[in-house]
């Protein structure tokens, strides 16, 4: 995979440094725009794989940049960053054409996981069967198997597993799971997702079987299909 190029439109020097450093060390090429107009210009030129746009910018605010880009047919995936973390803000950001929304303050690992998810977005196509390692999910009759063993999952657990399988090998954060699997817009206590995950794990792992889902310290989970 070639180096993914990200455009970070953000005016706060310290935030820029932290994000560039963190994502740079993970193999991304991070370009930078410090003002709204500059960001719009660079984003319009194309040649970037994903955008990270701060909501409040000098010159032109993030929402307007996104709307303008989308109107001009530029579909580069974008994450909105904002200190205004409210539900309505999030809805507005997504409505303006953002693919994801992250409220400040956030963990850098959370941003990295979301950028990765954005770049490797699974195409939700016409497939009716998902596979990852020994896992086999039938989306039509909502059944799941590990090897030959049928897994007895509740509907929500099936949805959770489906989400993990679609993103096999990627880190998924608790926030992502909560937004995508539960569809809730508030931030719950962190171990709420964990207890659901440990239930799913217990059902997934038969006697002596390898652990498929591993914890990513402090941030979320990863389903490793190679396990």
């Amino acid at each position, binding site marked *: 995979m070639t180096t993914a190029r990200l455009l970070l439109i953000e005016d706060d020097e310290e935030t820029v440094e932290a994000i560039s450093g963190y994502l740079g060390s993970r193999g991304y090429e991070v370009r930078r725009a410090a003002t709204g107009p500059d960001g719009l210009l660079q984003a319009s030129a194309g040649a970037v794989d994903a955008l990270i746009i701060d909501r409040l910018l000098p010159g032109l605010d993030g929402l307007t940049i996104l709307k303008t880009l989308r109107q001009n047919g530029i579909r580069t995936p974008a994450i909105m960053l904002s200190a205004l973390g409210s539900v309505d803000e999030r809805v507005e950001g997504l409505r303006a054409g953002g693919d994801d929304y992250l409220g400040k303050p956030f963990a850098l690992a959370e941003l990295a996981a979301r950028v990765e998810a954005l770049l490797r977005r699974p195409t939700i196509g016409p497939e009716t069967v998902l596979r990852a390692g020994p896992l086999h999910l039938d989306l039509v009759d909502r059944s799941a198997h590990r090897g030959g063993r049928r897994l007895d999952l509740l509907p929500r657990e099936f949805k959770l597993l489906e989400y993990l399988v679609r993103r096999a090998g990627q880190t998924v954060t608790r926030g992502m799971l909560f937004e995508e699997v539960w569809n809730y817009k508030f931030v719950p*206590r962190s171990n709420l997702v964990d207890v659901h995950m440990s239930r799913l794990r217990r059902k997934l792992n038969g006697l002596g079987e390898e652990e498929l889902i591993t914890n990513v310290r402090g941030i979320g989970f990863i389903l490793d299909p190679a396990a």
Partner: protein
Amino acid sequence: MTSWLVAPWQALTRSTALRWTLAIATGFTAIALVLFGFIYWETAVYERKTIDVALAEEAQRLAALPLGAVLAAIEGWIANDVHATRYAGVFDADGHRLTGNLLSVPDDLAYDRRPHAATFKGIDRDLDGDNPEPVRAIGWRSDDGGHIVIGNDLDALEDMKAIILRALGLALLPTIALSLIVGSALAKRAQRRIGSMHRAIARIMQGQLGERLPVRGTTDSLDRLATGVNRMLDEIQNLVEQVRGVGDNIAHDLRTPLTRVRTRLERGREELHTVEALGDCMDRAIVSVDQALAVVSAVLRIGQVQHHARRALFGPVDLTAIARDAFELYEPLAEEQGFCLSLEAGLPAIVTGDADLLLEALGNLLENAFKFAPAGSPVTLRVQPSVGRFVLRVEDRGPGIPLEERDRVLRRFYRSEKSRTIEGSGLGLSLVAAVADLHGFDLAILDASPGCAVDLICSPRSPERHPV
């Protein structure tokens, strides 16, 4: 008028007490005048009737007599008039007086043998001389075409009028004086109450928020107004105390985790020498910083929830479905922490609201139950209809909340001393209260003996129509 005179006069007339006094005095005087007027009028009518009846009887008697006898009878009638009130005259067809004390035939009288008012000019009467005198009189024509007239003057009526006017004059002065005294006493009393209210308001304005307007415990309008204002003051005092507490509480909640971070980092820098140990130290510092951030997020969140613009997002929501969602979401957590969470919900319970906020509120109530109730105890989530409303109840077997603290914990940003030692932002109930307030729902904390029940009492009507 010059200004030095105008100003005090204006001040005087503007004074409520004086206006009241004058109004009351004027009222009493008017009543006295009307009363005396009525007495005079009634008496006058009676007196006139008495005269008329006497005249009519006399006329009837005279009419039955032959003319010669009439002359004698009239002379006798006048002669018997000790009070000199009677007038009479008998005139021939040419208008010559045959007898009586009238100068000429009165021309303003109808000769129909009925009593009328007329004006007579008398003779042989040295009382009024030639002055015409108002009388009641009866006249009729004699058989030979002459006129016969008898009448009675109205001196008695005049005397009575004088008596009544004198009585009125005598009575009016005390009436006005008395009404001035009563009026000023009443006005002074009202002024005193208003004055004490003014003083109370001045004290409140100086910052004594606990001060209240004096109330006498009656149902008069001033008392009702004062009671209303006092209730408003209760609410204002409540809000001001909340605001005062907010800063302290937030500072306290932030200081604890931040102090922990500082200590950890300081000690880590001094004492730890391996990368692994430092990493561990930093991880723990991050956890503490996250805790501080959670407090900030919770405060901001409550602020967002309180924003009434959120009502624009309201729609019909099913409380039963929300309770099911909450149950599904929290049941694994309950199990992990050793609680037996059960759901009691049946038919759909539709209200107007925001499903996300209601779920969040319910989540906070459940998390509180898990925080405070002893592990292994049952926690129940229930949706039940109750007289036109729905009650969303979370019941646990925890220690509950003391009666005297119940009101306070529902106030935004209040934290009981007990809850400070428990992990979390501690603003859970405040958020629930904010969500309830936004929806126009009532929040109640009850004894479930043993344990504690928190009720969210949901009215199906839309909160826009609900007085907030």
